[in-house]
């Protein structure tokens, strides 16, 4: 298992060092610094073996987090755990930075003591940790409270404590989708998939049992005509005939969801943590409506000039508005000047990014606009040809490009006197760009 954990700043100075196992010596700290942080070339692997000692590292904003071991550990678990530590630290003191880590090193040691025992990860749910590891030191809790803490840390429902009360029972569902696209210059879709997640914010009293329904193809076909809806469902789609379904390639759930029940009955039931959490993640590849299409036209005119024309088409219902649209058109390294004309939004050549950045605040569906640029190039003697990186774009649209729909979310709390009807529910759909690239 994990033998030790080190945190370094970008210079390789140790900020946190915690050794869990006897086989890891102090020199391991230096070995990683010398061989990885101070290494000349770019990092070629997140796992490094130095003198029969393995180092797993992740780097976030100038901070290196490294786990060390001499055993044949579960590598996926080590990385998941390192990411979890980042998560825990962020929820305790915000951004991961040298400053913040130094400011909270006592807290970090306390956390590391709790969530990793002899190299074995323990309960690392921030909600639970916060009940007994606080920056003020432990409050002298009463006996009952202590028992409650321990039962929760080890409990079957380790993510929620008993006795939560709200005057108004409310829940928010955000369906957040990232559309990923790789398109050839000729407009052929090379690969496209949607990575979606459902983020839930729950403010519910007691220990509510929730049941969540979506327009998953398997469920819908099994049930025939399913019934049910949800308040605030703004996006009913009359254009398509019948009920649209989504084919989900794969989905993953928060640990609160009863997986065995999903496997057998295909129903998503759970007792939610209090506050915000990610209920599920899913991936779809079929019938994705691509909100935007980029059509590039690049012409090299001699050795010192290039002409670029980019047409942008929005491809969704005219009543909807796309926002935060940004198209990034890479330019050669030897660009000396750029003349730009665009019909809509603002475009600028950013030398530091080697790209033309074209921003449009809003754009309705089924519209078309374009940008033309003349790029002047410096004559260079470098033999290396400029390899055109793809044109990437960013956007946000108010619908789910995969066709994902929430059908219902029912809440049952038998012990308290509120019913499903008393809960106020909100649903929002957001489609964002993931890696949305068109080769040119």
């Amino acid at each position, binding site marked *: *298992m994990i033998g030790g954990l080190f945190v370094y700043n970008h210079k390789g100075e*140790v*900020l946190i*060092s915690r050794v869990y196992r*006897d086989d890891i010596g102090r020199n391991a*700290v230096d070995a990683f610094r010398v061989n990885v942080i101070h290494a000349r070339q770019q990092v070629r*692997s997140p796992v490094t*073996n130095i003198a*029969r000692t*393995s180092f797993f590292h*992740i780097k976030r904003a100038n901070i290196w987090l490294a786990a060390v*071991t001499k*055993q*044949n550990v*579960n*590598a*996926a*678990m080590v*990385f*998941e755990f390192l990411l979890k530590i980042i998560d825990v630290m962020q929820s305790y003191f915000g951004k991961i930075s040298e*400053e913040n880590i*130094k400011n909270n*090193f*006592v807290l970090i*040691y*306390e956390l590391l003591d709790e969530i990793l*025992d*002899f190299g*074995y*990860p*323990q*309960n*690392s749910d921030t909600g639970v940790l916060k009940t*007994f590891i606080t920056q003020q030191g*432990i409050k002298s809790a009463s006996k009952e409270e202590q028992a409650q803490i*321990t*039962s929760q*840390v*080890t*409990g079957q429902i*380790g993510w929620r404590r008993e006795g939560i009360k709200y005057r108004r029972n409310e829940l928010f569902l955000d369906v957040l989708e990232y559309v990923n696209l*790789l398109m*050839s210059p000729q407009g052929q879709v*090379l*690969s496209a998939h949607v990575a979606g997640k459902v983020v839930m914010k729950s403010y519910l009293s007691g220990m509510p049992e929730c049941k969540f329904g979506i327009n998953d193809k398997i469920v819908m076909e099994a049930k025939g005509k399913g019934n049910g809806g949800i308040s605030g469902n703004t996006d009913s789609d009359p254009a398509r005939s019948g009920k649209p379904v989504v084919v989900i*390639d*794969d*989905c*993953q*759930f928060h*640990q609160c969801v009863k*997986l065995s029940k999903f*496997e057998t009955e295909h129903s998503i039931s759970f007792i939610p943590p209090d506050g915000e959490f*990610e209920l599920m*993640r899913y*991936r779809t590849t079929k019938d994705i409506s691509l909100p935007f299409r980029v059509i590039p036209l690049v012409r090299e005119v001699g050795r010192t000039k290039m002409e670029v024309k980019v047409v942008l088409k929005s491809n969704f219902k005219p009543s909807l508005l796309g926002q935060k649209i940004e198209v990034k058109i890479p330019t050669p390294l030897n660009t000396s000047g750029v003349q730009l004309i665009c019909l809509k939004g603002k475009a600028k050549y950013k030398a530091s990014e080697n790209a033309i950045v074209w921003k449009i605040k809003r754009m309705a569906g089924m519209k078309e606009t374009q940008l033309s640029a003349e790029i002047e190039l410096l004559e260079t003697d470098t*033999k*290396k040809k400029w*390899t055109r990186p*793809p044109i990437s774009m960013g956007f946000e649209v108010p619908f789910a490009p995969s066709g994902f729909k929430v059908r219902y979310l029912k809440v049952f709390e038998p012990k308290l006197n509120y019913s499903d009807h008393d809960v106020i529910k909100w649903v929002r759909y957001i489609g964002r760009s993931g890696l949305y690239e068109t080769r040119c």
Partner: protein
Amino acid sequence: MTDSKYFTTTKKGEIFELKSELNSDKKEKKKEAVKKVIASMTVGKDVSALFPDVVNCMQTDNLELKKLVYLYLMNYAKSQPDMAIMAVNTFVKDCEDSNPLIRALAVRTMGCIRVDKITEYLCEPLRKCLKDEDPYVRKTAAVCVAKLYDISSSMVEDQGFLDQLKDLLSDSNPMVVANAVAALSEINEASVSGRPLVEMNAPTINKLLTALNECTEWGQVFILDALSNYSPRDAREAHSICERITPRLAHANAAVVLSAVKVLMKLMEMVSADTELVSTLSRKLAPPLVTLLSAEPEVQYVALRNINLVVQKRPDILKHEMKVFFVKYNDPIYVKLEKLDIMIRLASQANIAQVLGELKEYATEVDVDFVRKAVRAIGRCAIKVEPSAERCVSTLLELIQTKVNYVVQEAIVVIKDIFRKYPNKYESIISTLCENLDTLDEPEARASMVWIVGEYAERIDNADELLDSFLEGFHDENAQVQLQLLTAVVKLFLKRPADTQELVQHVLSLATQDSDNPDLRDRGFIYWRLLSTDPAAAKEVVLADKPLISEETDLLEPTLLDELICHISSLASVYHKPPTAFVEGRGAGVRKSLPSRGVVAEETSTQQPTVIPNQESLIGDLLSMDIGGPPPAPAPSSNVDLLAGGLDVLLGGGPEPGASAAAVPGGASGLLGDIFAVSAAPASYVPPKQCWLPADKGKGLEIWGTFSRQNGQPRMEMTFTNKAMQPMTGFAIQLNKNSFGVYPVGGLAVGAVGAGAGAEAALPLATHGPVQRMDPLNNLQVAIKNNIDVFYFACLIPAHILFTEDGQLDKRVFLTTWKEIPAANEVQHTLSNVVGTADSIAQKMTLNNIFTIAKRNVEGQDMLYQSLKLTNNIWVLLELKLQPGNPEATLSLKSRTVEVATCIFQAYEAIIKS
């Protein structure tokens, strides 16, 4: 209130100051001081001098302060064992505290203090904590047992902690179960005896599967990893475990998913392949594996390394998922390279068009390694997917036109392979290749180009000029290029003898007279002799048809792959190496292997490790042999005449004309082995060395070997050649159980073998080892270990080395026994190419412990009655019928154990021909 100020104390007299602060009466000040101490400790300053003062702060009701002091204790207790004792009382007291958090903290910390005297005191509190009413304390105590085992395994075993830990497997709290499983797994793996101390049985497994649904994500990983070590009794049990584990594939934690994949992959081996379960599982495995690719890049990397294994083991699972492995522009380089690897593996006729389009795109990227790999991948596609070859070649040509130096070089290296795969198809592009001759500066590319020029000399008008231009700087070339040049010029000469005589003489003199490289010199001499004695034979040897090259490259060796499948998600699967390669000592655990599925699986598993060289690989791939490092040259005399004379004898009256011709390109080692065998007469026959482990299968280690019998003891004789870049050390050998109970006496006397060097080893064998019937009977599976890896191969023991010296039967006994053995136990065999008289044959036989009892002449035929005894006391009686002038002889064999007949016939043939 920030803590960063503690990092900035660098004043003089700091320790002294801290000391006084630690002893302060004010609680706050004390706490501040301890924080400063911890900060100093973190940055690596030695603050062990403050030990007594810090320990004094331990008795406090402030939990934060207590934790800090404990942290300090864990770090320094080992260096101050005597003073650490001072802390014991507090620990013991804390273990009785009313607050479960404090009880757990105490037992957790105590286990981390590796001081004998403290460990003694740990047992009682630990025993209590394992039965504590609070699950939080129990789960902490469970891990503490593993800590104690690490310090003193005997104490854990003697004090009955194992049983207590086992009881925790049925605890009502899932997290306690999970930690208990983790601790037990670790103890099992580390167990001194190498055998698990606590066996998992079906009821325990059932409890674990129940706990699996309820514990934390990490607990699920522990349980799944433990399940992967369990082998169900039958297919039905495997089936039910599979069903209960499949839901885990939808977990958000990649480690849970991968561990579940590991268990499922392993269990799928147990269920017969055509059942519905296997196809359902195959279908269910694909989506979660694909989803892992949208995780953080580090997790993606681990996933990709594992997918690489899954694809090799079960190519069907992901065969339709090519697109998800397309490289994204912003992927980190390590993700890109892994994706590319998997793309090549998944390439098939159905998706080749897309793949090629992508690869072409990648070949224009920035990262040099990545581009090279992409170019190489295009070549692999051409070889793997035949209909795409044409497009691949034209893509490669386009890339050559870009004139980017490393792209061109890489392209030429792969085109050489394409030529090999599709002879007489794409040679029209040679002229384009020749245009780039001058830009090549890497040895591999230059060698490939020279090979192409030599191989197709008849189609390249100015081949002589091209090669001549290379010769100018002959001595500055890499050895690999020099060897290729030599071969290429000889090829050219054989094809166009008229106008290249001068050239070939030039290159031969360069190679034989002006070079220090024994390999080059030897090859030069061989060519020289060949050309001067028999140009026709030379043509046959040098221009012989080359064996086909394989379609897949970089495939893992099947046994290693199976082992790695058992280690999915672990570091071993990331490194693609068995744990023994990177874990020290007992932590490496027992070697894991996939469960077998009755008879069918067994059969395949015995065949898997075989790399028995067939005729093809013996003759070898001319090119790959050329490129390897120099094989060992035992005492190469620089005296030209002597060596040439030796070779003359060899080629003229050599022992085995066919074999020696075949071995010519193999360099000196095989030939010299033969010389020794011949000159060492009269002795028993020693077959020429065969390549048991080719360098490309042995990560650079090449082993040639044979068997002999000397002074009544069988021996294994091996030549080790290190063709890798790094020295090899720590050689060890192991033989699998075999039909004749052959096992090594003493170790392998091979020390370190430097890069490019070689070593000889003779391993005496004994024959009373454990016996297991092999097929063929004389098959021997060998494992060779060195610092790099463990390699497996199989070879055939020539039966005659197992013939004992006391195999002579009395005449009468022979007669009666011959009559006693039923006719059903008689086997006949015809020997061909028999030369020599009955007497000379009998003499040869005697040297090999085949004793002639009597000789008769019946109607012009010579009858030899012979007997022999195998080391396992099987008597064999034979009758050999020879006709003078007839190269065919009839051999009849009688034995109570007639199965040995085949090996004996083989031995006869070999001996007669020797």
